[in-house]
Structures are given as structure tokens and as C-alpha cells.
């Protein structure tokens, strides 16, 4: 396994560790991540504050490990939601010609708006909360999934094994279930990992510009946002959440690349 898919294993192990840290955050934190201590603000990393403290004296280590929960939850939720919705739209568009024209033009319209801008606009309409961040990023990602799935479905429909199944009397719902979905799942799973990674980055960007998770919830984006003004003199405030984000995105992308190779039935 390790020799055949080193990226898959490395990404999986790294991501499992990060997930573990996020789950165990209430056990692993050293200082209450929301506790203010103005007297000890912007301290560099030390034995008491492993990653230092921010402008309000809050412990960055504790904030970063709690921030992992937000990033992972957003990444995972957006990946699952946009995959399911995009799969539904894509499969239906691939099979129902009338729906195809309407649904795909709507998707094209959504795709014309940069995803960050769309998410910012949607966040402007609602209150800042993790759920709303998830919904805003999902809306931006669904068209990409729908388009991918529709393309796969259209190419699968013309394959001889699908035509052979039609000729053998397989009804359309069964055809989708037995032949279309299983052969769509591999590219979709790979796409979902990339969506997960990009959703975590989008969440950080939204929080960074103040349109994401409310400041009370520590997330990697808003820790960086708060350190922004000081990053030339106190770079550690930005460095630790940025490193955590980069490492997590790397882990997810390694996993995605590994899955793409491992899910290819032609490669034993």
C-alpha cells in the first residue's frame, strides 16, 4: 500500500493527525482560546504560549487547534454538500434534455461570478456563522461539480457497455444506479477532495476579510486577519495559522491525487 500509493498514505496519515488534533482540541489546549490578557499581548512563542499570543493576549496555539475544527468542518461539509447537489444536477442534466438547457445555463451564470465574490455577496445577505459560510461556499462550488458530472454522464451514455445495458432491457433509473453512478463516483471523489481544500482556503479568505466566521469563533482565517497589521514585526501570529492551513490543504490534495490513482480500475 505504502509503496504503491505513497501520496495517498502520506496525505491520509497527515489528515488523520490533523482531524485527531481538532477532535481532541478540548484536551490539547493550554490556555482558554478566548481568554483576553492585554498585559501579555504579542508575546513570541515560549514555554507558556507555544505559538505566542496575539494583539489581545490570546494564546495562538489554543486558537489554532480550535481553528482546525472550523476549517475541517467547513471543508468537509462543503465537499459533501456540493458533491451531492452537483451530482444530482449533473446526472439529471445528462439524462433529461429539457432540463439540461435550463439547469446548465443557470450553472454557467453562477460560474461567471468569481466564487469568492459570490460567497462574499451571499455572506452580506446573512449573519456571519459557520453554517452560512458553508452554504455560501457550497453555492459557489455546485456548478463546477454539476458540469464535471454532466460531462462524465454524457460520455458514459455513449459507451458500448451502457448501450449494451439499454439493449439488454435495463431501465433508466437502474442504468443510472448500476452503470452511471459507480463510474462517476471516482472522478467525483477526487474532485471532492479538491473542493474540500479550496473551501478551507475560501473560508480563511472570507474570515480574513471579515465576511466569514464571527470573530468570537477562532478560525485560521480570522487569526491571520487579526495578525495582519503586525505581520512585519510579529510574523508568528500569521505564520502558525497559515502553516496549519497549508499543511491541511497539502494533506487533502495528496489524498485526492492518491485516490485518483487508486480508484482507477485499470490500474491493479
Amino acid at each position, binding site marked *: 500500500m505504502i509503496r504503491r500509493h505513497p501520496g495517498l498514505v502520506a496525505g491520509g496519515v497527515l489528515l488523520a493527525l490533523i482531524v485527531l488534533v481538532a477532535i481532541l482540541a478540548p484536551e490539547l489546549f493550554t490556555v482558554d482560546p478566548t481568554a483576553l490578557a492585554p498585559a501579555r499581548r504579542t508575546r513570541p512563542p515560549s514555554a507558556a504560549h507555544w505559538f505566542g499570543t496575539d494583539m489581545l493576549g490570546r494564546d495562538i496555539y489554543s486558537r489554532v487547534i480550535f481553528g482546525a475544527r472550523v476549517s475541517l468542518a467547513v471543508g468537509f461539509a462543503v465537499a459533501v454538500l456540493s458533491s451531492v447537489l452537483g451530482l444530482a444536477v449533473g446526472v439529471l442534466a445528462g439524462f433529461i434534455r429539457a432540463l439540461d438547457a435550463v439547469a446548465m445555463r443557470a450553472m454557467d451564470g453562477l460560474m461567471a461570478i468569481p466564487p469568492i465574490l459570490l460567497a462574499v455577496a451571499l455572506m452580506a445577505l446573512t449573519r456571519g456563522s459557520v453554517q452560512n459560510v458553508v452554504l455560501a461556499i457550497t453555492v459557489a462550488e455546485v456548478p463546477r461539480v454539476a458540469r464535471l458530472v454532466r460531462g462524465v454522464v454524457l460520455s458514459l451514455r455513449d*459507451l*458500448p*457497455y*451502457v*448501450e*449494451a*445495458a*439499454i*439493449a*439488454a*432491457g*435495463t*431501465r433508466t433509473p*437502474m442504468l443510472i444506479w*448500476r*452503470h452511471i453512478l*459507480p*463510474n462517476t463516483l471516482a472522478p467525483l471523489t477526487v474532485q471532492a477532495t479538491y473542493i474540500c481544500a479550496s473551501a478551507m482556503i475560501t473560508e480563511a479568505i472570507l474570515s480574513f476579510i471579515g465576511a466569514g466566521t464571527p470573530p468570537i469563533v477562532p478560525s485560521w482565517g480570522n487569526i491571520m486577519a487579526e495578525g495582519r497589521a503586525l505581520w512585519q514585526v510579529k510574523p508568528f501570529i500569521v505564520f502558525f495559522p497559515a502553516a496549519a492551513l497549508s499543511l491541511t490543504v497539502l494533506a487533502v490534495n495528496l489524498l485526492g491525487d492518491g485516490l485518483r490513482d487508486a480508484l482507477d*480500475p*485499470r490500474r*491493479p
Partner: protein
Amino acid sequence: MTALLEIAHLTKHFAIRGGVVRAVDGVSLALARGETLALVGESGCGKSTVGRCILRLTRPTSGQIVLDGTRIDTLPERRLRPMRRRMQVVFQDPFSSLDPRQRIGDAIAEPLRNFALPAGPAEIAALLDRVGLPAEAARRRPHAFSGGQRQRIGIARALATGPDLLICDEAVSALDVSVKAQIVNLLADLQARLGLALLFISHDLAIVEHLANRVAVMYLGRIVELADRRSVFAAPRHPYTRALLSAVPVPDPTAARRRIVLGGDVPSALAPPAGCRFHPRCPAAFDRCRVEEPAPRIPVPGHMVACHLEVTPPARGG
């Protein structure tokens, strides 16, 4: 001999940007039970489209298709379904004709389950045995098999529902020569044992000569000659058939050959030539061919040719 399959004036036109492709333009033929009819012609002549129309993988534009007394070209999908059991297909590409994620046993069981037929290990093993594969093949996936083995699996799947008609769309064209011979022999053997009617769509005349009872030659969406194998190969009447046959390689380098080389390319099915569609390339074309489309004639009983050089002799007697 009553006809199992009868096709009359079948047309299939595809609307594309800039016109209408007349892929099939008035094809009529009949196929008896247990008979092998070969449909031959160059790429793009519409032979595969005829097969796809019969299987209703595409809806014909007009014409009639009658399978064993039931007109199937206009049946709604729900009523067509029971008829699907009686006609099956084997495709050209053994790699894309099996679902890479489906185990062989499930692939063969799929048509059986669709028609609520018994699909247990015994039935699957019997079907695999019929095409010369071991029963344990059922547990494996397509990537574990060679092209020839996959084609056998495709044949087993096609035979599962006990069809009367098997459409082989270039079923051996993608295989190596030795494997090709095995599959052709398997098809011939199965046909003899099961009494299948075969519609053998191919451009490989050597195999057609080996396998077919009758041969239909297609050119640009039309059948130009239709007769029993012996007549087509020994005494071809249409200039196009003669040119096709002269292009078949002969495994004897010293044999004297007179090749008829056709000039130019096949004209576009978007704008077929006026008159006889073959006239721009025909070595024997004359004025009439340029203006008048030749009607099918029967110069010799059982031998149809669509060419102005032929005349149907008047019925004798009286």
C-alpha cells in the same frame, strides 16, 4: 422460411449544424430465422446505424422495422422492453463494451435480472461455458481479461436472454487475426446450435465470406447489392461491389489480380450526389446515372442490384 426481421424503407437522418446527414436513406432487407446476413460497406456508409435503429439505441427517422410480426420502430419504450429480450448486440470494442466496475458474473446476470429470469451461479456458469470460459471468471472484473476473452464475455451477455437475433457490430474487427478466427468460429458454432439469426455488420470481406449466408452491400446509406454469398463473391454485379472485392488481399503473392481502384473519396452524406450516389466514382457511369437514381432491380432471382446497367427480366410464362 418466414422472416424474423423485416426492415422496409428505413431512414435515419441526423440534423447537424449546416444540414442533415442522411446516414441511412431507404434501406430494406429481411432476415430469416437462423440465417446470417452480412451488412458490408466502408466506414460511414450507415451500416452501424442500421443496427442501432433495429436495437432502438437511436430512433429511426422513418420506415418500418418488424421483428417476428411486431412492428418495433414506433413502440413506446415500455412495450418495446419485452422485445429487447429477443434481440441482442455484440459491439466492436471489447474494452469499452464491459463496465470496468462490474464483475463478469453481474454483467452476464444483468439482462437475466432485467427480465426476472433465473440468474444464479449455475446459469452464469452455463453461459460462460457456452463461450468457452471457466465458471470462476464470474468473480473477476473486465481488466483481468484479454480482448478475445472480453469479446466472449460480451457474447455470453448477449446470449443470456436467449435472443432470436444477434446483431454483431464489427464484433471481431478490433481483434488479432488468430483471436478473430476463434471468435468467428464461436459465433458460427453458437448460431448452428442455438438457431440464432445473425446480422453481421462488418467491413472485413474475408470473414463475411466465411460466415454469411447472404450479403448486403451498403454505399452512402443505401443497399446497392443484396444476394446470397456465392453470387456476391463469385459474380458481383454492382460496380461498387466489384471494386470492394478487388480490394480484398489474396494470400498468394503470385496470383494475378486486377484491382479496381476507385478515384476520390466517399461523398459526404450531408449532400449525396444526384442520380446514382456512386456515379462520381463509378468506372461504368453514363449520362443516366448522373440524373436518375437507380431503382432496385432483380436481374437474377434472389439477386438485388441497384444499378442502371441491370434490368429485371420480364416474368416468363403466360
